[in-house]
């Protein structure tokens, strides 16, 4: 399969390290940044990362009853959006049902309100899977703080070797996570394995900007400003230096598309956001 070097050498940002070292270093990066992860995301992207994540979930367009696994889901951004989305779809569903039946008895109306209370998500579920304990901890705290509990579970796991059975999920998402995986090919194979036939793979990740002027500005901002923001806000220059380097190291749109196809996915396509700073790749297990 195309992809990473067969030998144990790989990269950590612009450094060359062994695969084991890379995993260790990346674990430490996220252990360090976990508490300030969300603040940093807002600062670095000026809040735009929220729009990107909204677009991802809209593209997914989940209906009630969908089973989602959000890998490298860390602090829960995708999971919470998924829950909000299916909740509102479910509400609309119930409203439509009410509208259609003009002559409802009181019993039927109160039954439908109860349905909404008892099953607000319509049996939808999201499993947040992350390799890093600190990130999961922050995610659970956020969930508690924001009031998310129904239909949500947290699992410690490695994208390269998921702790789930075959053919389990309707949708697999990985948002800003696949870049940190050491063996992307393995992660893609695992994604294929745990998806049900007909299931969808969605990946939101930093990608490559082709417009040369924008690329220069983006590079300038990335290398001059982002590590400074990391130092000022999180007291951690090096983790954010790693972040911007790892974005440059990650395969561009077409190459990632090929890797996804190699894992067996069909109808693979991508959509550039913000001129290619970020891209959403999509594929189906058919």
């Amino acid at each position, binding site marked *: 399969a*195309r*992809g*990473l*070097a*067969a*030998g144990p*050498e*790989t*990269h950590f*940002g*612009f*450094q*060359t390290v062994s695969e084991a070292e890379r995993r260790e270093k990346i674990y430490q990066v996220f252990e360090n940044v976990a508490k300030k992860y969300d603040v940093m995301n807002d600062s670095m992207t000026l809040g735009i990362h929220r729009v990107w994540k909204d677009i991802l979930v809209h593209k997914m367009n989940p209906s009630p009853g969908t089973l989602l696994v959000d890998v490298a889901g860390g602090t829960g951004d995708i999971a919470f959006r998924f829950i909000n989305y299916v909740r509102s779809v479910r509400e609309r569903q119930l409203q439509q049902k009410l509208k259609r039946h003009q002559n409802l008895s009181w019993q039927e109306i109160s039954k439908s309100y109860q349905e909404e209370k008892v099953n607000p998500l319509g049996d939808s579920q999201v499993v947040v899977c992350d390799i890093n304990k600190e990130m999961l901890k922050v995610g659970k705290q956020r969930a508690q703080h924001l009031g998310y509990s129904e239909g949500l579970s947290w699992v410690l796991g490695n994208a390269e070797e998921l702790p789930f059975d075959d053919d389990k999920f309707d949708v697999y998402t990985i948002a800003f996570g696949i870049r940190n995986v050491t063996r992307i090919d393995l992660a893609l194979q695992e994604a294929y394995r745990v998806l049900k036939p007909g299931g969808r793979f969605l990946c939101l990740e930093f990608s490559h900007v082709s417009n*040369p002027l924008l*690329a*220069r500005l983006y*590079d*300038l901002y990335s*290398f*001059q*400003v982002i*590590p*400074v*923001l990391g*130092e*000022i806000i999180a*007291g951690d*220059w*090096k983790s954010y*230096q790693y972040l911007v*380097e790892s974005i*440059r*190291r990650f*395969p*561009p749109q077409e*190459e990632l598309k090929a890797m996804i196809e190699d894992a067996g996915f069909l109808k693979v396509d991508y959509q550039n956001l913000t001129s290619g700073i970020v891209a959403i790749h999509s594929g189906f297990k058919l």
Partner: protein
Amino acid sequence: LRAPPLSAGRAGLSRAEPRAEEEPEQEEADGSFQLYPGHIPTSPLQKALLAAGSAVVALCDPYRHDMVAVLGETTGCLALPNLRDKMKHDPEGYRILQERPRIRLSTLDMDRLRGLPDGTLGREYVRFLEDNKVSPDTRMPAKFVDDEELAYVIQRYREVHDLMHTLLGMPTNMLGEVVVKWFEAIQTGLPMCVLGAAFGPIRLNARKLQVLATELVPWAIRSGRNASCILNVYYEQRWEQSVESLREEIGIFPPP
């Protein structure tokens, strides 16, 4: 400016794109740019951004000691060479620059210092650390100073800060810190000290401000002017000396 090493399996696609001009010295994977352990080379733009950002954060949250440290490092480019020269031209200071002593829990014999008679530098220093529940090991190492010797100078300044508290008799609350900053501003000329001295009082109430303005600051300024350079004192060799005699020797007036 090297291109980053390519990983062999990338199907021939080159990652070394239009980056040559864009990334100057921040590739600290490159050992030759790192002048000392912990050194992070920075471009002038980054230093400016760091200085501005750390100033804002330090003002909003004075307990972010790391931001105070960063502010000191990024704005000290004129004051630090000055201090280094003062040290070079003084016999004791010169020795300090040569021997590079560090004040750390691992290098200090706390029990011995505690056993010294009251009024000695060693005894009072330990008393200060215990009363204020601070430790010399919480000082940030220098990161953004682009000269190895100057990095030591600012490190020495940080480590000597607690001794300043001891010699000036000031506690580590906001008021005490501001007074020490005034003294240090006069002594070192570091912009960070000047900013701290000027803006620190914003957080004090009216009563404290009055004491500050009428008694403490004038005394700090007089002492700062009168005293010889505080970095030229080899404190580690003077633990047995009494605080009073050391004050007299340096030229610090007795605290009000």
